[in-house]
């Protein structure tokens, strides 16, 4: 591979190459448009580095295999699209509950159901946050270019390892199938993080005890620690409990385990936000269009800005509130019926401040439409 030279690279292929560079050595999946190129590339790349690729019988089994591989100590991933992602939800909840590091890629197409299988959409913004049952911690990263898919895939693996959590990489079909000229970093320069392995005394080992940072160390299979893993609500010793005081304590630790690591987790891009009167919020291909629209609006003398969450969940809400404080309009541009808008409306909590530009026809929203809406709102703001 000529990794450090300029190349034309597809988004999905960038994801696969980054996974290999991040240390992923297991892929269990079931192909589905528009994510299939990830599986195809992984099936070629994994054997070259001594890894294992399995095309499973379905998405449910794929997610189970990925969790099993990770419990065995191997960095593991799967990739899918909306309908397949729905099938993974039960096991995704299991991974969140048992705190098994793994990476799940969801390349979004038009839905619901079979929907528009070859067309782009951003309809899984809420499914990535609340698709699985029960309250649970989850991290979702949402790149908007081929280069960023590469960087965020590596980051997804590192965050999943360090924070012992499933991490979802979420992008639309346009970004996944987009080919861009990129210059990838030398794999030797890539920082790889590994999970904390238990190293203390084997006697009295408590696999889910909080070591202080909210993230318990995992027992490496074969290291001699007595460890128990269950999807049942479990206390620090790893065995099931229904004692309300225990449940309250361990669930508070689980649900709050990202709290002291938000510096590591939160990420976003802010463009011309300092004095923005109209602040656009968008992800994926909609954010690429919004970026041009904002630059054109600036060139025309309008005070427009862009806030692009790179970490979608947990939403970088403190940073967003700071950037949105001075705006008179926050314009949410998204390829669905209004999902990110719900979160932005919650954060703005000001009637009339949030405007929506949404579409679910399978056609991306272009810069011209966003610019027209910015113009309209800028006039509205002055009136």
């Amino acid at each position, binding site marked *: 591979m000529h990794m450090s030279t300029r190349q034309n690279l597809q988004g999905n292929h960038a994801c696969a190459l980054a996974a290999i560079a991040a240390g992923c050595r297991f892929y269990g999946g079931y192909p589905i448009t528009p994510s299939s190129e990830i599986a195809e590339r992984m099936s070629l790349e994994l054997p070259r580095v001594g890894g294992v690729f399995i095309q499973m019988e379905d998405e449910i089994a794929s997610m189970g295999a990925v969790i099993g591989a990770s419990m065995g100590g191997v960095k593991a991933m799967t990739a899918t699209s909306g309908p397949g992602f729905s099938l993974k939800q039960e096991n995704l909840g299991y991974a969140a509950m048992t705190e098994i590091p793994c990476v799940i890629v969801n390349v979004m197409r038009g839905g619901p159901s079979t929907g528009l299988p070859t067309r782009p959409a951003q309809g899984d913004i809420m499914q990535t946050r609340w698709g699985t049952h029960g309250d649970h911690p989850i991290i979702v990263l949402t790149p908007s270019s081929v280069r960023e898919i590469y960087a965020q895939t590596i980051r997804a693996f590192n965050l999943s390892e360090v924070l012992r959590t499933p991490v979802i990489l979420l992008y639309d079909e346009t970004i996944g199938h987009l080919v861009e*000229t990129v210059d990838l970093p030398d794999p030797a320069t890539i920082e790889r993080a590994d999970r904390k392995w238990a190293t203390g005394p084997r006697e009295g080992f408590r696999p889910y005890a909080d070591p202080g940072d909210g993230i318990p160390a995992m027992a490496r299979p074969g290291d001699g620690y007595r460890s128990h893993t269950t999807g049942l609500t479990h206390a620090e010793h790893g065995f099931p409990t229904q004692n309300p005081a225990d449940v309250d304590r361990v669930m508070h630790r689980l649900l709050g385990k990202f709290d002291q690591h938000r510096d590591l987790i939160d990420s976003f891009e802010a463009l011309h936000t300092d004095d923005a009167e109209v602040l656009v919020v968008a992800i994926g291909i909609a954010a690429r269009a919004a970026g041009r629209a904002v630059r054109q609006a600036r060139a025309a003398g309008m005070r427009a800005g862009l806030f692009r969450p790179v970490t979608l969940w947990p939403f970088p809400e403190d940073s967003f509130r700071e950037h949105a404080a001075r705006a008179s309009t926050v314009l949410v541009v998204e390829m669905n019926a209004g999902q990110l808008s719900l979160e932005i409306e919650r954060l703005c909590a000001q009637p009339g401040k949030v405007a929506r530009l949404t579409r679910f026809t399978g056609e991306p929203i272009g810069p011209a439409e966003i610019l027209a809406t910015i113009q309209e709102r800028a006039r509205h703001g002055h009136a």
Partner: protein
Amino acid sequence: MDNRSGNAVQLRFGGSGGQGLQLSAKILAATLLRAGRTIALSQSYEPTSRGGVSRSDIVVGEGAEPVDFPLATELDYLVLLDEVASRSSLPLVRGGGVVLADADRVEPGGGERLVLRRLPFTALARSLGNERVANVVALGALIAVAELCSLATVEAVVREETPRKFLDINLEALAAGHRLVMAPAAEAAVGC
């Protein structure tokens, strides 16, 4: 308002699924990379292995940085291999933009706004022995018109990307398409 924002050139291969539009665009994108350009290549197709509207767009950037918005907003060049892609593609061509349309499969038209040239891509491909290389004939014609890269660079990419069994006919198709624009008389025998 400027609808291009730093994009040097925008091109589209449009037609019916199965005509090799994605492949032509991929070859051209690889050629432009070799010529030192920065590109964004996007595609659209329907959930059928053949038929339906299929297109592949290339946005060529002006510098080394990735293009800001990677989708086509205003085409400079449109290659049309089937009428099915006309309605969605022709309105996207800028005033004075060039349309290279297959003479057998695309209706005459385009109006005064565009330069529409109907060329015998399919007929030429048939005369070479395989109608399916019409996409490569069209690619040859496009590079002659657009002057984005040399025929030799495209040839080098075609040599690398094509299975040996189909190499000769693809090289012939590329050269024939190029001549179609550079020296139209040479291909007159095929007619349109």
